[in-house]
């Protein structure tokens, strides 16, 4: 880093900003630290988590046919939480736009990554159900107690 040589003539010129003034290359125009924004983020994260839990515990188990809809809801809420952690806690929202882009653009690879592999998994399931008898048979074979009407084990949950 260049600051070893450039220290002598730039150090004093770069003093007006506060806090991390160790290198003249980095000029912090920002923020006295805003703890209100942090607590607001905390409440948002906590709120979203509570919504997820309430849906997961009490609502979704009653509507099995809508599982896909609930999963989409969870994905949206998870994305929102990820955004708040990255933007506020990791402070990325307040960095220079070019730097944000060096993080955000490569992250777009995840779109391909998810689509391609989940599609592949689904296709593999369909192929196996169609051509692998054993796999298809497992689909309908329920696990039943070994000795006919044996009582459920203590601690078993149903």
């Amino acid at each position: 880093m260049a600051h070893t040589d450039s220290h002598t003539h730039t150090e004093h010129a770069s003093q007006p900003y506060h806090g991390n003034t160790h290198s003249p290359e980095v000029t912090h125009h920002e923020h006295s630290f805003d703890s209100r924004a942090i607590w607001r983020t905390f409440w948002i994260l906590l709120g979203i988590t509570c919504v997820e839990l309430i849906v997961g515990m009490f609502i979704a188990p009653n509507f099995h046919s809508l599982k896909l809809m609930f999963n989409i809801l969870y994905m949206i809420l998870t994305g929102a939480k990820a955004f708040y952690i990255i933007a506020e806690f990791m402070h990325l929202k307040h960095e220079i736009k070019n730097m944000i882009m060096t993080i955000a653009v490569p992250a777009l690879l995840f779109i391909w990554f998810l689509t391609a592999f989940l599609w592949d998994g689904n296709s593999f399931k369909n192929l196996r159900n169609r051509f692998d008898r054993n796999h298809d048979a497992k689909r309908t074979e329920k696990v039943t107690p070994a000795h006919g009407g044996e009582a459920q084990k203590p601690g078993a949950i149903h």
Partner: protein
Amino acid sequence: MAQAIPANQKWWSGGRSPFNVEYGKLMMWYFLMSDAFTFGAFLISYGTARFSTNSWPDPNHVFSSFPFAGHAHLPLVFVSLMTFILIMSSVTMVLAVGAGHSNDRKSVVKWMIWTIIGGIAFLSCQAWEWNHLYHQGAWWGQIPTEAGSAFLNADGTKPNTNFSNFFFTITGFHGFHVFSGVIINIIMLIMAYTGVFDRRGHYLMIEKAGLYWHFVDLVWVFVFTCFYLF
């Protein structure tokens, strides 16, 4: 939004950092990107395995225990506690970073101690949960398949070991990150306490450790959704 930049600022003409962040912090960001792809690969392979299977264990049945609650059916309560602990320790980490901005050593030490306590609490919860699942018969390569087991597929068919393999591998890898984060935070605490950062004149190391710690929290958000909600 993004930092306001004067129109005539020449970022790329030398003499200053074009991204206006310290070198180490930028490299921490890129390390975390690579780590995100490692976790992404784990979680997406879990998703692929799950998509290729006809049915899967129901998390509401598998994760329904709480310490000292016996056999009470409390789905997802324990994992919500773990999530809360991790979010809370993320907040105390930000407060430590904030205190570092104003070179306030006492507050940095205080908030770092709280962050470390949060990390250790999370790890203890995870140890309890692993131990509990292990004693129910789930482990790498093992899953209980007898009638009435909480691990049966949602449609009542026999589960395969994909569930336990992925669960222990991914939460284990995440737990390892939490563990190393706690170690890093302890080192930061010692350095702050002994005045190393005061002598340096800045607390930038706390920011880098903070980035790592928030990343651990970020990954947990995804692990939580993939294993406990879906």
